[in-house]
């Protein structure tokens, strides 16, 4: 009996097929892969322009086969706005970490969300500044030790972590806001479905969309990749609950 091999999973076409610079077990790679899969599946390769951040994903443009620009730290939503305004039919997304988006770039993300223009933001929340060596981020949890909160983050000295998805969902501009987690196969499937909705919110011209991805940073967390996934479930999710915080009519 003749047999053929059916493809269950292969690398996306939008993936440039290079070995990334990310540390072993870092979920940036997972988020990258989901982006590439969706760009393939939704036929967006020819019209995509990605805006990369300053942070671990600064070299993101090396790994994809669509057009890319590299923004200044925190300014990706402004740059994406400039690109989208000049080319409204293109698909424009930013990919930003928590220092980039929630600290130095807070003004840009809030106003991009408030304008509500159809751009998409993939937001990586791993609770620290990974690229610079694990300093405290706006998303660092209370009690969490980082290189700049060596005794653990306290409200008295460092203030409180920011829940970006909930905050932006208060605005009228966004069409789709969700928080997902990249900690397990089931949650990664859900993450992809949320990203699909976010991409669709732009493709269908409905409005601004953002997916916040709870992610790991095994190197700076000083945990193994597997322990890092467990930490997301045990420590991060209780503070940063998963869910859809804004779903405008027509987003699917």
């Amino acid at each position, binding site marked *: 009996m003749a047999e053929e091999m059916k493809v269950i999973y292969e690398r996306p076409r939008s993936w440039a097929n290079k070995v990334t610079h990310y540390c072993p077990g870092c979920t940036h790679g997972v988020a990258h892969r989901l982006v590439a899969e969706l760009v393939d599946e939704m036929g967006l390769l020819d019209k995509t322009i990605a805006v990369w951040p300053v942070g671990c994903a600064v070299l993101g443009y090396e790994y994809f086969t669509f057009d890319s620009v590299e923004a*200044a730290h925190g300014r990706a939503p*402004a740059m994406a*706005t*400039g690109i989208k305004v000049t080319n409204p039919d*293109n698909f424009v997304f930013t990919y930003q970490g928590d220092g980039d988006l929630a600290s130095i770039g807070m003004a840009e993300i809030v106003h991009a969300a408030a304008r509500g223009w159809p751009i998409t933001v993939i937001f990586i929340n791993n609770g620290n500044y990974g690229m610079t060596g694990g300093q405290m981020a706006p998303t660092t949890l209370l009690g969490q030790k980082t290189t700049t909160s060596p005794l653990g983050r306290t409200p008295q000295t460092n203030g409180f972590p920011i829940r970006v998805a909930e905050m932006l969902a208060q605005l009228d501009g966004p069409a789709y806001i969700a928080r997902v987690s990249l900690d397990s196969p089931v949650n990664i499937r859900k993450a992809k479905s949320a990203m699909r909705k976010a991409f669709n919110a732009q493709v269908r011209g409905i409005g601004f969309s953002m997916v916040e991805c709870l992610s790991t940073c095994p190197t700076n967390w000083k945990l193994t990749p597997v322990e890092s996934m467990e930490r997301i479930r045990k420590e991060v999710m209780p503070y940063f609950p998963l869910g859809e915080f804004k779903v405008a009519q027509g987003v699917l």
Partner: protein
Amino acid sequence: MSDKVLMKGAEALAEGAIQAGCRFYFGYPITPQNETPEYMSRRLPEVGGRFVQAESEVASINMVYGAACAGVRVMTSSSSPGISLMQEGISYISGSNVPCVVMNAMRGGPGLGNIAPAQADYFQAVKGGGNGDYKRIVLAPSSIQEGVDLFVDAFELADKYRMVVMVIVDGLIGQMMEPVEFKTKVDVSTLKTPEWATVGRHGRDHANVITSLTLDAAGLEKWNLKLQAKYAQVERSESRIEEYQMDDADYAIIAYGTMARIAKTTVRVARAKGIKLGLLRPITVWPFPAKQLQAYAPKLKGALTVELAYRQLFEDVQLALCGKIPLGWFGRGGGVVPGPQEILAAFEEQFGKGR
């Protein structure tokens, strides 16, 4: 359009940019140039363009950066403190080799300063401001008409060299009204999207990437050398100067922009008194017209630099002429604008009666 119309400077300059093919404007309110974004917000939609009021000057310049990556004619305008906030973006845009135009209606500083006319952002405009080794072309009109004409050049130079072009004016030029004629109208349908633009692949066999990042030192040095070669080419080809009453001049005033406009009256007053004074007015302050100044050195007994700042333009004059002829300087700061007689008095104090 060939008839003259009476327009306020800040609006005429905006219309000049539109006639030069600018279809995208991103900006943030700041005095004394608010009429420029206000005009853009009315006019750009009429010509199929887009005006966006950004949340800050930081966002404005990065929106400009994004649009510039798409290869369109794009600009922003601001005034001194706002331009300071844009320095990061200007450095990135320069490091990424994409074109745009930035207008600065300079006001008194440092800090919040005031909203009166000044030229104290000269160093920031011509020497740097942002990080890294980069240059912008800096055009300094001294009338509304010249500003309108220079906007056409500004966009062409930006596209030609893939550089940031700055147009520096001040509140005086922005707020006064003059008859102006729009001589050149660029048909934007003739402007082609550059092959490097990030506009989506749309069948292109490779991805376009625009970045100012080069991690490896040898690679970044190579990139810098490429930029330096470009800047050297601009220095060779693009410096401009106006020579006023210089044919028989014994002395020259060196001034640009508003200050040069006032100094022209000083020249006339001085000549009425028998002093053979002329004016050398850099139209490009970068590239600085050093060669043109040097050509006059053998004929001149001295030159007085006049500016609305403290020895900023003077530094470039010194670099060009130091040791060749006696140099004097006169300036006012903080938004105080000297009149023609005050300049003449300064000249006579430093150079005698000019005989």
